[in-house]
């Protein structure tokens, strides 16, 4: 800064005939530098926003397919000769027929659709229709038949899941080039699919079971859904809410209103600020060592996940609760003390209700953070488990192995079948919608109830 005005002795500075109207070279340079610097700033913000746009576009364009699924509508003749060999409609006999007994019926039904419509195809056998349907379709039909044994002998319309390859073909994931090396489907099947789509037999529909359904095995991507892991997340969040809200509020009240400046208080404060920055995976290690190895709580249970996430969210909740307690003006406390309330009464009756909207907002944001957390859940075993069973009750919801939304997404991202990638993106859309609505609720709460003094 100083060398510009400093002239070494013995050298006469060149005369400057500066004018205020024409800019000299140096001013131009400085102005250009100013402009450049400004552009850097704009470029940085634009970069950030572009990253955000790319991220959101990737999520939406890759994930929206998961909410649609390809179905085959077909008339299935429930052959009594196959399904009820004794002919006495005894439910125990009907249950003895496994899904293998139903598969040919489905294949015949679809083949009939093909021949009835006069679609020309080199596939001449009914069993070659297998590649079109999901492996779960036979089980679906079997479940319906066991529910209503009277249907046997009738021709009933079923809407069954198409295989994930057919689904992928209609969504552009599977192409004629990619099926050449694919053992489970051939190009002829794709031609047939095109023809059946024109005939209205195969169609894409909204896929509710992606939101409500259970996870499926590796080979049945078309059947997998988020439902069970959403429940797992819900039970976990209940644990987090029930534990972290009272403990967090109690801790903040103590630190903000009662704590005297001493070693113990200092220690607590330092601990809270450090815990807020400890990597989440370390909390997973803590959960594994303390809750599972030491206390023998059940592995993969939402209860344990909730406990770990509680410890993780507590610092967030304590920090935001303290901020909203601090925002309540001291005059309120003084007034309460002045008319004879005890310190505790002034806090519980006056300060806490006034700080409640802020506390609630902080809690919701903390919960949203906990909901998206994955790494600690990996260590306590909420991954690698196929979340295929709905919990059958409150206790089972807390204690039986389950997954959670982010853990389920991770599980799908690891699987080899690209059909699962679409599911993973779709799961992210659900997760982000939940998080966004939680944050919106927090913002609305803050807008409506926030009071400025």
């Amino acid at each position, binding site marked *: 800064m100083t060398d510009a005005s400093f002239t070494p002795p013995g050298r006469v500075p060149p005369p400057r005939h500066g004018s205020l109207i024409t800019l000299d070279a140096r001013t131009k340079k400085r102005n250009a530098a*100013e402009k450049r610097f*400004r552009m850097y700033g704009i470029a940085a913000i634009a970069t950030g926003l572009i990253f955000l746009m790319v991220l959101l576009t990737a999520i939406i364009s890759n994930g929206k397919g998961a909410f649609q699924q390809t179905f085959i509508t077909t008339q299935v003749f429930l052959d009594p000769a196959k399904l009820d060999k004794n002919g006495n409609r005894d439910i125990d006999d009907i249950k003895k027929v496994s899904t293998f007994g139903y598969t040919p019926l489905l294949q015949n039904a679809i083949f009939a659709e093909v021949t009835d419509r006069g679609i020309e195809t080199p596939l001449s056998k009914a069993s070659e229709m297998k590649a079109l349907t999901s492996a779960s379709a036979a089980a679906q039909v079997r479940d319906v038949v066991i529910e209503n044994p009277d249907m046997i002998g009738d021709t009933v319309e079923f809407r069954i899941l198409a295989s994930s390859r057919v689904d992928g073909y209609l969504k552009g994931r599977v192409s004629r080039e990619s099926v050449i090396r694919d053992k489970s489907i051939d190009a002829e099947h794709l031609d047939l699919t095109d023809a059946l789509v024109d005939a209205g037999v195969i169609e894409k529909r909204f896929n509710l079971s992606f939101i409500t359904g259970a996870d499926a095995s590796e080979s049945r991507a078309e059947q997998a859904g988020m439902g069970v892991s959403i429940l797992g997340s819900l039970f976990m969040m209940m644990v987090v809410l029930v534990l972290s809200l009272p403990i967090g509020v*109690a801790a903040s009240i103590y630190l903000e209103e009662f704590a005297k400046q001493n070693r113990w208080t200092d220690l607590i404060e330092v*601990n809270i600020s*450090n815990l807020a920055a400890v990597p989440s995976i*370390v909390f997973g*290690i803590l959960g*594994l060592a303390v809750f599972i190895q030491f206390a023998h709580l059940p592995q993969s249970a939402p209860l344990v996940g909730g406990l770990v996430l509680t410890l993780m969210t507590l610092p967030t909740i304590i920090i935001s609760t303290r901020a909203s307690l601090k925002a309540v003006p001291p005059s309120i406390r003084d007034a309460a003390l002045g008319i004879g309330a005890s310190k505790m009464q002034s806090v519980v009756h006056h300060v806490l209700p006034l700080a409640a909207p802020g506390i609630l907002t902080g809690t919701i944001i903390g919960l949203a953070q906990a909901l998206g957390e994955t790494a600690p859940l990996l*260590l306590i075993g909420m991954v690698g488990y196929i979340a295929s069973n709905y919990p059958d009750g409150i206790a089972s919801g807390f204690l039986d192995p389950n997954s959670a939304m982010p853990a389920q997404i991770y599980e799908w991202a690891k699987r080899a079948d690209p059909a699962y990638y679409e599911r993973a993106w779709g799961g992210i859309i659900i997760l982000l919608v939940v998080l966004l609505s939680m*944050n919106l609720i927090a913002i609305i709460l803050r807008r409506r109830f926030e009071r400025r003094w």
Partner: protein
Amino acid sequence: MPVFWLVIVVLALAAVGYILGRSRALNSAGGDIRRLHSLPSYYGWNAALKVIIPALLLLVVWLLAQPFYVNSVVSKMIPQAEISEGSSRGLVMAEVRRTANGLDSIAAAGLIDDDATRNLRVDTTDVTKLLKDAGQVVTSGITQPVLAAAQHYRIMKASGDLIMSIAVVAFALAGLLWGVRESHFDFRARNVVEQVVKALLIAAASIAVLTTVGIVFSLIFNTWEFFRLYPAADFYTLFEWAPSFSGRGGASSLGILPLLWGTFYISLVALIVAVPVGLFAAIYLSEYASPTVRGFAKPMLELLAGIPTIVYGLFALLTVGPMLLTVFGDDGLGWMQGGRAVMTAGITMGIMLIPFVSSLSDDIINSVPQSMRDGSYGLGATKSETIKQVVLPAALPGIIGAVLLAASRAIGETMIVVLGAGAAARLSLNPFEAMTTVTAKIVSQLTGDSDFASPEALVAFALGMNLFILTLALNVLALYIVRKYREQYE
């Protein structure tokens, strides 16, 4: 669920205590509320708290202590001969516990009645088959000492549970009696209740300390175990990471250095992306932007911070990786072999850290006093000259603190590297190669079926220990710098 019912009983007694305590205090004052020292409800709460707190405290302590006691007694019953080569007392005890659970389910399923399970003998009944029928998974044939230990375990557990229930209810009743007898009009109930509540508040605040203690102990204890099985010198000096899953001990080489290198390399790439973008965004937002632009751009950037890391992980794996591969892969420049690489994880992590760096720097730049800027303008400096030569030097310590916090975030980040960085531990300079990090290896060593006694699993705790120390040091340093800086201008 006996514990559940026990808690319900205690809570019910507390409700009784509340009603009795309150009415007794009112009666002692002859129904005149003005003669009471405290409001009537305080007398009720006094009695209720005296029921709940000692009883539940006893319940928790008992639940924690009983398994240890029972385990230590029962494990003494197992003869040395029962512990086969390559096994340990702990493994046999696990078998005993499984057998005991199996006996429970045998009795529950009604295969044989409860008395008979206590008198089962291996030589007269096929216990292993019986257990399997009841749905219990047992590893090998059950031997007589294991069965006897399991039967003893069951008896001790049952009688322990019974004594616990009696003791808890007795504590609750004693508390009830105590609280109700105290309820007299000149008893200072409010002071007592407030003292107790304050103690509860302190206990809640201490959970933060307990968590840290829990983290430190679980890390130290398991790391110690690991270093007993595997030499610490090798762990810190070997340039190779190759865990074997078949052998135990010597067969694996578990060196932390390649993992640390991967961690630092990926964090470096992330910071190279995040720091310039975040810093310039913060400068623009705090010095140039109009309130409308700021009001739009700041929340938009912060949206990036609210997105869960699993989303970034998937984004790295399925979008960033393939994108980089088309440019640097075999079809392009030929530097990159697969989608998972240091660059993939680093760039994605950089995107995640942009809002972190920008909002921290924004705060810090805003807290530079306006008078310093005004002085600079007064000397004829342009806006950018003021920022470069006055504001940034003044804010530098704070910005360094922010970068250090971002670095600590990057080092501890898990999901992005698990999905985006690859699994092979490598010491290489090529940023387009797959490498792995400390956090990714913690995940891979602790998920799966390996038992927690092998060095291959325990190494994760040693890694976690180093990660914890590293991030803690960075955080403490960063907070110290930021605090020093704040003091300078406040």
